[in-house]
């Protein structure tokens, strides 16, 4: 990319930075209103995902990156999904067959 293109990018970087700052404040603010745990997790994770998306897409240039990188990440995310399956394996796996109190 040439210098002019880079100049345009710089504007984007500043915008993204402001968005990240705002989102950080939003997520902290939400935590102060004490939502019930499941929705608190959902909101916080959603905000974090948006922020992570912004960083990846613009700072790490994923939005304009080549497909090979996307494929590496897609593969990685598939295995990431497997690894997140792990707590499920433990916690849903164990079903006591009989009531275990005396």
């Amino acid at each position, binding site marked *: *990319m040439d*210098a002019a293109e*880079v*100049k345009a*990018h*710089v504007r984007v*970087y*500043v915008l*993204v*930075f402001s968005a*990240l*700052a705002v989102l*950080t*404040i939003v*997520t*902290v603010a939400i*935590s102060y209103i004490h939502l019930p*745990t499941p929705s*608190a*997790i959902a909101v*916080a*994770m959603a*905000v*974090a995902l948006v*922020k*992570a998306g912004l*960083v*990846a897409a*613009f*700072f*790490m240039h994923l939005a304009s*990156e*080549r*497909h*090979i*990188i996307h494929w*590496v*990440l897609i*593969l*990685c*995310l598939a*295995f*990431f999904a497997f*690894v*997140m399956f*792990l*707590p499920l394996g*433990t*916690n849903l796996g164990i079903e006591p067959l009989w009531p275990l109190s005396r």
Partner: protein
Amino acid sequence: MSAIDLPYQIEPHPVTGVTSGKLGIWLFLASEVMLFGSLFSSYVLLRVGSGMEFWPSGVEAGLNVPIGTFNTMVLIGSSVTMVMSWASLKMNKLGAFKGYFATTIFLGALFLVVKAFEYSDKFSHGVFPWVGWPEAGDPSTFYALYFTLTGLHALHVLLGILPNLWLLVFGVAMWETDRERFTGRIEIAGLYWHFVDLVWIFLFPVLYLL
């Protein structure tokens, strides 16, 4: 050392469109995603396994949210200066690059200093990795996870700062001889740095807010 001129170190590969270094760092980051993925997955397993009611939120456990927020801002800021320093190189502004890059290193160091203060504050209140969360009356691995995850992240920050420092002080000489290659190196350093930022973006709400 190696005298062999391997292709695609500077110019992108015609099919993949990236240099070898860039493909390599992305593969490394993929493996880092799996590392932190395993850690997060373990966090979920331990938290669900301990019963939700026994798990403190960061505030309940005595973590300082304003300081955490400040640190988040510091790290996001360093990410921005990092990308700006790369853009400066692209625009052939070496001076601006040096300024931005030095700021990045400074902000990274600031992050570590703040983290160190948070740790020592915890230690002085008798909070160590091996304590549970005594208030709840049930053991939990909250602090163990807090120290392990943030400690591992801090190690990543440190491992980002050191090569960056080298690049700023010694590596910059390459700008005179091989601009393309130096810009490529800064881009790779940047990708790693943004990833470290990205991990913190998840760690912060998970540990401090939830």
